[in-house]
């Protein structure tokens, strides 16, 4: 296993940039007074982010992805288990892509 030393400055810069993003938001919150209103906003972000992940994927996807999202909704409705629902979704996508492709 060899490692070229001229890679080190780039590696250090990349690591610093990535870690900065991971702690940056957390540090910024030091300067924000966490009122109930701010807390409500923070509590709202996961659902909003999930919408930001799912909606573009649904728009860009085809029948396989739409079918899978319906399967996830149904599984959640009757089973209320998110891991199971996600696994069902992945299985539906894999199977229906196999048929479509």
């Amino acid at each position, binding site marked *: 296993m060899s490692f070229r030393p001229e890679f080190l400055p780039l590696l250090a810069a990349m690591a610093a940039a990535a870690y900065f993003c991971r*702690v940056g938001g957390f540090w910024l919150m030091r300067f924000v007074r966490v009122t109930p209103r701010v807390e409500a906003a923070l509590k709202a972000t*996961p659902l*909003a982010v999930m919408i930001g992940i799912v909606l573009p994927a649904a728009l860009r996807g085809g029948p396989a992805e739409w079918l899978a999202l319906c399967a996830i909704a149904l599984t959640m409705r009757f089973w209320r288990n998110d891991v199971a629902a996600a696994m069902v979704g992945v299985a539906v996508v894999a199977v229906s892509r196999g048929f479509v492709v």
Partner: protein
Amino acid sequence: MTGTAVHTSWDGVKRGFWRAQPMAVGVFVYGVAFGLLAREAGILLAEASAMSMAVYSGSAQLAAASAITLTGIDGGGLGGIGAIVAAILLLNARYLLYSAALWPWLSKTPARVTYPTLFVLGDGNWVLSMAAYNAGERDAGFLLGSGLASFVPWLLGTLLGASAGALLADPKLLGLDFLLVAFSAAMGIGLARAPLPWPNILAAAATALVVDRLAPGGWTIVAAGIAGGIATALTHRPSTRAKS
């Protein structure tokens, strides 16, 4: 579990680690893909592994690897390094939002817990942990454990891809590229309990639609998250809703 104070325990680490295992498969395959690309870019096994440990970010590492194809392993001097750093900051801007949302949880843990936990922060483990927090989880170990559950397969996948170059089956055909979407959909449905938070949902959806057209990728996530948060703050009425 509601009313439990924030704490950190090995039990929590284990709970998070096991709970996040379904996501680990997808991360592993993604890691193999990065390893393969790194190999193509002329990045050696030890270098690719060091990248996966120190940078630990799929989109950022893929972008960096394709830049290295052009510049060589030193990044092409200060200007080239600057360009790669800028790309990483843009691609990972969503982590600023994620870590801000973790403030109520991680501001109550000691630094020796907080900073390693933030180091292994990722999309899957954040989504999972925020859903758990909402359900009453207050053990910060859960965050660390679910983060490690992705960190380990990411490194193992990189090692396999960069060393053997073994071509796994197409992850797309296995549906593994859909894993994060599937989890987000399932947890989103789980989170959206009646009365539905309409300002949040509508603001996030409308913003996602617009931004996805303009600047697809990580920006959609950041914009939707911020829009949902702002809409919630603006419509927040302290008296109407008891704590969930």
